[in-house]
C-alpha cells in the first residue's frame, strides 16, 4: 500500500514535470500532464481503499534533509477517506480535462496549467496524510499557492487577478491562525507530531482550549468557506477554468473540513459543549445564507460556488451535532452525526464537481456563464443535460441520490437531539432541523431555476442556439461522477460500513451496524423512535410510478383521440425566447420575501414616444446588496489601510535607518542578556 501511495505521488510529480516540459508543445503537455494525473489518481484510489480495508495507522517518514523536521506521513482511516474522495475527483476531472483543455491549445499556456494542476493534486494528497504540524503547514501552503496560480490562470482579466489576490490574502490569514493553534498544542505536548496531539487539546486549561478551538475553527473555516469567512469563494471559484473550479469546490475547500475533523475529534477528546453549538450555528448560518445568495445569482458558476458554502454548512451541522452529542455523552448519536457530516463531504465533492464540469461543458460550447443567455441546451447537449440534472437532483437532496442520504442522516441526527435530555439542545436542534429543511427546499428551487433556465425551453441567444455536445472525454468525466451520485445513493447501505474505522478512530464507536440494522436495503437512524428509509425502494417506486401512466395509456388511452394545438400565447401572435421566464423573474418572489437580507435595489427606465402606456423600450436593472462585503470587510479593509499608513513612518526607506533598527535591537539584547 505504501508502494502504491508513493507511486501515485511520483505520478503527480511526473505530471508536473511533463506539464512544465511541454510549455512549447501544448499537445504533449496536455496529454502528458493529465495522463500522469489520471494514473496518480487511480493509484491513490487503490491505496486509499487498501488503507480503509486494512484499518489501523500506517506511518513512515521520508528523509527531509532539514534538521528538527521530518516529512512524516501518517495514513489512517480519516486521511484514507479524504484521499479516496480526492482520488475519485482527480480521476474524473483529469479525464474531463483532456477534452476541456484542448480548446485552449494555442491560446493559453497549457504546460503551466498542467504543472500546477498536478502540484495541486500532490499537495492535497500530502495535506491529508501529513503526520506532523510542520509538514502539514508546508503542504497546506503549497496547496494554497498552487490553487492561487490556477485561480489566476486567466490573469489578463482584472477581475480574475483580484479574485486570486483575495483568495491568497484570506488563505494566508487563515494559515496564520493555524500556525498559532499548532504552536499552542506543540508547547503542551512537547512535539510537533500529530500522534502526540491526540486528545492533547482537552488537557489544556479551559481558556486555552477555547483559544485553540477558535483558532482552528477560524483558520480552517476560511479555507472551507464558512460564513462570514466565505467572501473569497464566490469570487475565486467562478473565474478559474471549470476543471479547476471542480477541484476547488470539490476538494480544496474540503481540506478545511478535514482539518476540523482532525482537530475537533482527534486533538480534542470532547470539545466544550459551546464549541459544538457554535459549529452547529455556523453550519446553519452558512447553509441558509449560501443558498439564499445562490438563488440571486445568474452566473452559473457563481451560483454553484454559493452552493458550496451551503453544503459546507450542512457538513458542519453534522459535525456540530456530533460535538454536542460527545460533550453530553451520547457516543452512538455522535457517531450518526459524524457519519452524516463525512458522508456529505464525499457526496458534495462528487455532485458539486459534476455540476461544475457540467457548467464547464456549457461554457465550452456556448461561451457564456450567464444563464439568461442559455436556454434549450437539452436538445444539442443531451448527455451534459442529463449529467447536470443528476447533479442537480443530488444537490437538492432529493431521493434516491446520494445527497438525499447524507442530508437525511443529518436530519436524523438533529431529530435525535430532541430526545436528549438537555433543555438547550432540545431547543436548538429542532430549530436547526427546521432551517436545514428550509435550506434544502430553497436549494431545490435554485436548481429548478438553474436547470430550467439553462437547459429547457428555447435558446435565449445566438450562442445557445448554436451549441453542440461536449467531446467524449468530457462526457466520460461527467458520466463517471454521475454514476457515483447514483451508486452512493442506491448503495448507501453497502457504503456505510466504510465509516466504521473512521468513527472508531475519532470517537471510538462503530455506528454503521445500527444504521443498516433493518435489512440490506434500508437505513435506519440508530436512535430510538428514529426513521427508516430505503433509497433502493424509493428508486423502484419511482420507476414503477413513472411506468403507471404508460400502463393507463395502454389500457384506456390507446383508443382515445389525439388533438394537437399551439401553446397558449395570451393572444400575442408568435411566442419567442423573449416570452420566456427569466432567471431574474424566477427568483423575484424570493427577493421579495427575503428583502430584509438582500436589500434589493432596482431601477426601471421606460422610453416612450406618445404615452407611457406604449413604451418603446424598457431598461430594467436589479441588484442586491453584498451585505458581508459592505458591512464587515469594507470597514476592516479601511482600518487595515489606516494602520498600515501609520506603520509606514517606521518604514523610512533608508538603509541606514534599517541598519540602525537592527543595531539598537542587537545592543539592547546583548545588554539584556548580560544583566539576566
Amino acid at each position, binding site marked *: 500500500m505504501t508502494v502504491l501511495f508513493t507511486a501515485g505521488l511520483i505520478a503527480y510529480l511526473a505530471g508536473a514535470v511533463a506539464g512544465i516540459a511541454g510549455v512549447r508543445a501544448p499537445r504533449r503537455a496536455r496529454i502528458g500532464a493529465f495522463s500522469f494525473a489520471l494514473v496518480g489518481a487511480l493509484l491513490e484510489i487503490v491505496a486509499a481503499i487498501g488503507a480503509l480495508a486494512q484499518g489501523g495507522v500506517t506511518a513512515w517518514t521520508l528523509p527531509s534533509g532539514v534538521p528538527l523536521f521530518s516529512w512524516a506521513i501518517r495514513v489512517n482511516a480519516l486521511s484514507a477517506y479524504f484521499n479516496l474522495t480526492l482520488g475519485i475527483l482527480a480521476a474524473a476531472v483529469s479525464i474531463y480535462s483532456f477534452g476541456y483543455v484542448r480548446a485552449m491549445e494555442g491560446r493559453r499556456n497549457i504546460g503551466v496549467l498542467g504543472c500546477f494542476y498536478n502540484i495541486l493534486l500532490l499537495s492535497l494528497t500530502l495535506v491529508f496524510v501529513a503526520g506532523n504540524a510542520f509538514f502539514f503547514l508546508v503542504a497546506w501552503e503549497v496547496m494554497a499557492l498552487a490553487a492561487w496560480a490556477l485561480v489566476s490562470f486567466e490573469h489578463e482579466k482584472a477581475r480574475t487577478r483580484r479574485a486570486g489576490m483575495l483568495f491568497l490574502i484570506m488563505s494566508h490569514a487563515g494559515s496564520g491562525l493555524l500556525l498559532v493553534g499548532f504552536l499552542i498544542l506543540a508547547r503542551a505536548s512537547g512535539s510537533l507530531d500529530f500522534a502526540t496531539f491526540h486528545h492533547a487539546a482537552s488537557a489544556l486549561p479551559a481558556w486555552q482550549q477555547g483559544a485553540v478551538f477558535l483558532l482552528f475553527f477560524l483558520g480552517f473555516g476560511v479555507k472551507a468557506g464558512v460564513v462570514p469567512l466565505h467572501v473569497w469563494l464566490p469570487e475565486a471559484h467562478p473565474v478559474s477554468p471549470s476543471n479547476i473550479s471542480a477541484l476547488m469546490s470539490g476538494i480544496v475547500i474540503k481540506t478545511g473540513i478535514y482539518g476540523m475533523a482532525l482537530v475537533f475529534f482527534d486533538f480534542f477528546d470532547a470539545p466544550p459543549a459551546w464549541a459544538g453549538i457554535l459549529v452547529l450555528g455556523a453550519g446553519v448560518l452558512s447553509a441558509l445564507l449560501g443558498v439564499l445568495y445562490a438563488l440571486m445569482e445568474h452566473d452559473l458558476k457563481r451560483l454553484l460556488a454559493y452552493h458550496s458554502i451551503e453544503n459546507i454548512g450542512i457538513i458542519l451541522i453534522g459535525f456540530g451535532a456530533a460535538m454536542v452529542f460527545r460533550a453530553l455523552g451520547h457516543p452512538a448519536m455522535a457517531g450518526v452525526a459524524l457519519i452524516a457530516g463525512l458522508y456529505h463531504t464525499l457526496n458534495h465533492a462528487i455532485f458539486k464537481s459534476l455540476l461544475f464540469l457540467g457548467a464547464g461543458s456549457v461554457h465550452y460550447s456556448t461561451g457564456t456563464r450567464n444563464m439568461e443567455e442559455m436556454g434549450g441546451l437539452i436538445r444539442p447537449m443531451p448527455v451534459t443535460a442529463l449529467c447536470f440534472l443528476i447533479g442537480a437532483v443530488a444537490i437538492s437532496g432529493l431521493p434516491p441520490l446520494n445527497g438525499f442520504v447524507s442530508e437525511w442522516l443529518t436530519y436524523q441526527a438533529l431529530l435525535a437531539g430532541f430526545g436528549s435530555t438537555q433543555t438547550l439542545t432540545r431547543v436548538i436542534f429542532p430549530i436547526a432541523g427546521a432551517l436545514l429543511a428550509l435550506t434544502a427546499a430553497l436549494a431545490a428551487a435554485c436548481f429548478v431555476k438553474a436547470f430550467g433556465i439553462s437547459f429547457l425551453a428555447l435558446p435565449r441567444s445566438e450562442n445557445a442556439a448554436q451549441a453542440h455536445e461536449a467531446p467524449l472525454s468530457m462526457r466520460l468525466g461527467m458520466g463517471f461522477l454521475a454514476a457515483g451520485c447514483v451508486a452512493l445513493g442506491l448503495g448507501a447501505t453497502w457504503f456505510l460500513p466504510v465509516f466504521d474505522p473512521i468513527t472508531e478512530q475519532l470517537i471510538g464507536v462503530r455506528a454503521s451496524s445500527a444504521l443498516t440494522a433493518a435489512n440490506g436495503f434500508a437505513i435506519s437512524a440508530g436512535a430510538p423512535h428514529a426513521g427508516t428509509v430505503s433509497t433502493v425502494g424509493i428508486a423502484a417506486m419511482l420507476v414503477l410510478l413513472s411506468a403507471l401512466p404508460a400502463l393507463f395509456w395502454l389500457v384506456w388511452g390507446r383508443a382515445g383521440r389525439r388533438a394537437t394545438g399551439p401553446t397558449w400565447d395570451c393572444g400575442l401572435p408568435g411566442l419567442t425566447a423573449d416570452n420566456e421566464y427569466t432567471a431574474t423573474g424566477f427568483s423575484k418572489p424570493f427577493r421579495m420575501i427575503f428583502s430584509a437580507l438582500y436589500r434589493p435595489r432596482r431601477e426601471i427606465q421606460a422610453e416612450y414616444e406618445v404615452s407611457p402606456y406604449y413604451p418603446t423600450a424598457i431598461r430594467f436593472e436589479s441588484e442586491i446588496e453584498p451585505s458581508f462585503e459592505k458591512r464587515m470587510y469594507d470597514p476592516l479593509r479601511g482600518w487595515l489601510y489606516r494602520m498600515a499608513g501609520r506603520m509606514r513612518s517606521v*518604514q*523610512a*526607506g*533608508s*538603509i*541606514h535607518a534599517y*541598519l*540602525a533598527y*537592527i*543595531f539598537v535591537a*542587537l*545592543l539592547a539584547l*546583548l*545588554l539584556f*542578556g*548580560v544583566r539576566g
Partner: protein
Amino acid sequence: MNLLHNPEFGDKLVTLMAAFVLVLQIAMVGQRSLVMNIRLFAAQSLLLGAIAGSIAWYNHAPHIFIAAGMTVLLKGILVPIVLERLVDRIDIHHEIAPIVNTPLSIIISGALTLVAYLVGESFYHPEAGAGSLGHNTLSVAISVFLIGFFMMINRRKALSQVLALLTLENGIFLAATCLTYGMPLIVELGVFFDVLVAVLVLGILMYRIRESFESMDVSKLRRLRG
C-alpha cells in the same frame, strides 16, 4: 627558546594580534580615505589569517590552517584587489562621507568597545577551567563586530558599507576561531563562499545603484519608496 612549542606564549601572541585587529578597526573608523580604508581592511584580514595560523599551530589543529590560508587569500588579497579596482572603475570620490563626524565616531567606537567587554566578561568563567584565550579575544571580536556594524550605519556610500560589512564578518570569524578553535571545515568554507558571493553581488549592485541614481549614496534609495 622553546617559544614555538609553548601554548602559553601562543595565547599571548594571539591576544596581542587580536588587540591590533581592534586598533586597525578603530583606525578604519577614523580614516577618511576610501583606498586607505581598503588597505587597512587588507591588513586586518592578514592579521586575522596570522591569528588563525597561530591557533592552528599551537593547538595542533591542522584544519584551521586551511581557514587561515583562505582568509589570507580571499580577504587579505583577492577582495581588496577587487574593491580597489572597483574604486578606480566607477570613479567615485575617494573620500568617505560619514554621517556622524570622525571624532564623535571614535568616541562611539570606544563606547562600543566598553559594551563589548561588558558582554564578553559575562561569558568568562575562570572557575570552569576555560582557557584564557577566549577571555580577551572574545571581547575584541565583539568590539570589532559592533564597530563594523556602526560603520555600516555611519557611511553613506555603498562601497564603504560593503567594507564595513566585511570587517563585521572579520569580527565573527575572530570570535568563532578563538572560542571553538575552528568550526567544522564545511562551515568555514560556507562562510568564505558567502563573503565572496556577497562581494560579487554587492559589486554588481553598486553598478546598478550608480546607473539608476548616478550616485553611490544609498540615502538616495529612499526614492524607491512607493
